[in-house]
C-alpha cells in the first residue's frame, strides 16, 4: 500500500512535513552541541583513565584511577587552589563593596544619571582580552599610568607586578573593575523594587536610617546579593584570560590560578590525561557551586511570588 503524500513529494516533502519541522530546526544546534561539547566531554573523561600524551605517538595505556590519585596528591594543585581562593575571595568581596556602593548611588536621581550609568556598565561589556591588555598597560613600569602617577611622589619606578602580592592585587583590581557593574545591576534591581511607601511608613515610625536599611532595604536585596556572590564566585573560579594576559601566572607561580595551571599541564607539558583528570576535579567543584546558585535562584523566585 503506497502512501500518496510520500510517493508524490519524495524525500524533500517528507522532511518538510510540518510534523517534523520542530525536530528539523533543532537538529543543527544539537549536532554542533554534540560535536563541540558533549563528545569532547565524554572523550576527555575516557582519556583521564589512560596515560595519553598529545605530543607523543605511543599507544596510550590504561591507568585506572592513577591520574586522579596524582592530581589529588600533587602539592602544586593545592597551591594553585589556594591562589585561586585568594583571588576569588578578595575579588568577589571588592566587587560586592563597589557594586553595592554604586547601586546606592544610582538608586537616587541625579543629572546625567542615564549617561553615567551607561559608562559605568561598559567594563562588563568588554572582552576579557581587552580588559587584560588595558590593565597590563596600566601596570607597565616605564610608561604605565599607575607607575606614572606614583612617580610624582616617589622617584623610583613602580613595578606593580614585580612582587607576588602586587601581582595578585593587580589581577583582583582588574577583575573587580570589570565585574563590579554586574553586582551593581543586581543590587540596583533590588533597591528599586522596594515600595516607596515603606520608607515613608518608616519615617512616620521615627526609625533611624540604619534601622530603615536593616528592616526594609536589606531584605529586598538580600537574596540578590547572595546570587551575585555565587555567580561571581563560579565565574572568578574559572578565571583565566585576565591572569594569562596580565601576569601569565607570574612572578614565579604566585598568580597561577587553577585554570592557568590546567592550561599549562595540558598544552605546555602535554600531560593530557592528567590534565583531563584535573579538569574533572574542577568541573565537580563548579557543579557544586552551580547547584547552590540554582537553589538560591529558585528561592528568590519563590520569595518574589
Amino acid at each position: 500500500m503506497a502512501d500518496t503524500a510520500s510517493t508524490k513529494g519524495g524525500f524533500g516533502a517528507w522532511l518538510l512535513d510540518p510534523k517534523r519541522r520542530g525536530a528539523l530546526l533543532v537538529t543543527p544546534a544539537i549536532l554542533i552541541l554534540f560535536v563541540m561539547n558533549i563528545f569532547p566531554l565524554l572523550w576527555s573523561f575516557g582519556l583521564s583513565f589512560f596515560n595519553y600524551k598529545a605530543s607523543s605517538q605511543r599507544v596510550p595505556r590504561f591507568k585506572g584511577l592513577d591520574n586522579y590519585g596524582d592530581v589529588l596528591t600533587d602539592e602544586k594543585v593545592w597551591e594553585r587552589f589556594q591562589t585561586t581562593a585568594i583571588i576569588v575571595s578578595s575579588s568577589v568581596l571588592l566587587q560586592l563593596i563597589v557594586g553595592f556602593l554604586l547601586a546606592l548611588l544610582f538608586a537616587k536621581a541625579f543629572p546625567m544619571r542615564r549617561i553615567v550609568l551607561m559608562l559605568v556598565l561598559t567594563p562588563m561589556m568588554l572582552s576579557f582580552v581587552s580588559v587584560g591588555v588595558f590593565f597590563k598597560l596600566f601596570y607597565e613600569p616605564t610608561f604605565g599610568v599607575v607607575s606614572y602617577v606614583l612617580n610624582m611622589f616617589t622617584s623610583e619606578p613602580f613595578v606593580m607586578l614585580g612582587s607576588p602580592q602586587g601581582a595578585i592585587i593587580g589581577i583582583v583590581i582588574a577583575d573587580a573593575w570589570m565585574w563590579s557593574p554586574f553586582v551593581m545591576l543586581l543590587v540596583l534591581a533590588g533597591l528599586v523594587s522596594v515600595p516607596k511607601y515603606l520608607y515613608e511608613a518608616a519615617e512616620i515610625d521615627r526609625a533611624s536610617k540604619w534601622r530603615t536599611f536593616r528592616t526594609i532595604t536589606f531584605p529586598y536585596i538580600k537574596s540578590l546579593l547572595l546570587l551575585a556572590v555565587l555567580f561571581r564566585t563560579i565565574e572568578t573560579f574559572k578565571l583565566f584570560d585576565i591572569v594569562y594576559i596580565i601576569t601569565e601566572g607570574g612572578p614565579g607561580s604566585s598568580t597561577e590560578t587553577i585554570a592557568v595551571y590546567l592550561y599549562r599541564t595540558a598544552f605546555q607539558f602535554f600531560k593530557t590525561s592528567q590534565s583531563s583528570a584535573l579538569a574533572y576535579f574542577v568541573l565537580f567543584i563548579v557543579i557544586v557551586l552551580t547547584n547552590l546558585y540554582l537553589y538560591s535562584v529558585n528561592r528568590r523566585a519563590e520569595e518574589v511570588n
Partner: protein
Amino acid sequence: MSELKVNNLRRTYGKVLALDGMSFDVADGEFFCLLGPSSSGKTTTLRAISGLEELEHGSVHFAGRDVTESAVQGRGISMIFQTFALYPHLSVEANLAHPLRRSGESASDIKKRVGEVAELLRVTHTLKRKPTTLSGGEQQRVAIGRAIVGRPKLLLLDEPLTNLDAKLRDEMRTEFKRLHRELGMTMLYATPDQIEALTMGDRVGVIREGKVVAIGTPRDLYGAPTNTYVAGMIGSPPINFVTATAPSDGEIALPFLDQPVEAPGVSSGQPLVVGLRPHDIALANGEEGGIPAKIHLTEPLGDVTIIDIRTRDTDMKMVLREEVAARFRVGDEIAVKFDPRNLHFFDPSTGARAAHAAT
C-alpha cells in the same frame, strides 16, 4: 492640647495645582473627616501635615507649635496609609514594635505595649505571622495598631478602607469610632466616600480642587448644604437638581408644577437651581392629587428601592420602602408630592446657597 491648625497650604506638581489655599482647624480629640473625590488634594494634605510632603506656601500648627519646617519624626503625628504599608519581611509583632524602637523603652515594656495594642485590635493570634499571610481586615488592624502603638497625639488616616471589601468596610467604620472613643486621640480621616465621612466624622470638611469648600457637622452639611457641590457630594442617592425661575417675589415656578411654590427671599425674575433630595419625595395618595410621574427605572437595594421617575421631561430619583415599591412596575403611572420647605435654592452662576424656603 493637640489641636491642629492648617493654614493656606499650597502645593503644585509641575503644572497641576494639588493644594490651593487649603485651610481648616481640627479641635483636640475631634474626629475630623476630609471628604472629596480622588485627586482633590486629600492625600497631599495629610502628607503635608505629617511632613512627608514639602509645601510651597502655608503653615501647619500642631499642639500650639509651628511644625511646618519640622522633620517627620519630630511631629508626634502618626499615619495610616491607603496601602497599609506593613513591612513585608517583619512579623506582625515586629511591625507593631517598630515605632517603639527609638523611644529607648526596654524590651519587656515594648513587648507589653505590643501585647496591649494587639489585644485592643484583636490581632493577638497573628503576632508571629508575616503580614502577607493575613486577610485584608487583619492587615488593616495591624496597620492601625502600628500607627497607635507609639501613642501619637494625632492620627492621620488616608483612605484606610478603600482597599477593603464592602462588608469589612462597615465593620471597620464601627471599629474606628470605637477606637476614637476609647483612645481619645485626635483623628483626621480622608475619604472619597460620603457615607464614611458622615457616619464617623464629628465634623466634615468638603474639599474640591485643593481647597475646603464647606465645613460642618454631618447634619448641617446634609440639611443645609452651602452650595451645589456640597449638596451633590452628600446624600445617597444624590440630590435632584432642576433649574427654575421666580415669576414674582417670594415664589418660584418649577418645570413640573402648574402652580408656583412659596420661596421666601426670592426676588422676581431670579434664575435658580433647585435641589430636592430623593428622600424628600413621597407618594401622594388619591385624594391629594399630587404630581403625575412615570416610573422608568428601579434599583432595589433590599430594604429600599431607588426609583427613577419622569415628570414632564424632568428626571428625578426618589426612594421608596421595598414593600411599597414592590407594588409598582417600570412604566407605571404614579403621583408624587413633596414639602416645599425641603427645597434647597442655589445661585446658578456661583453654585452658592441662595435662599431657603424654610427660613
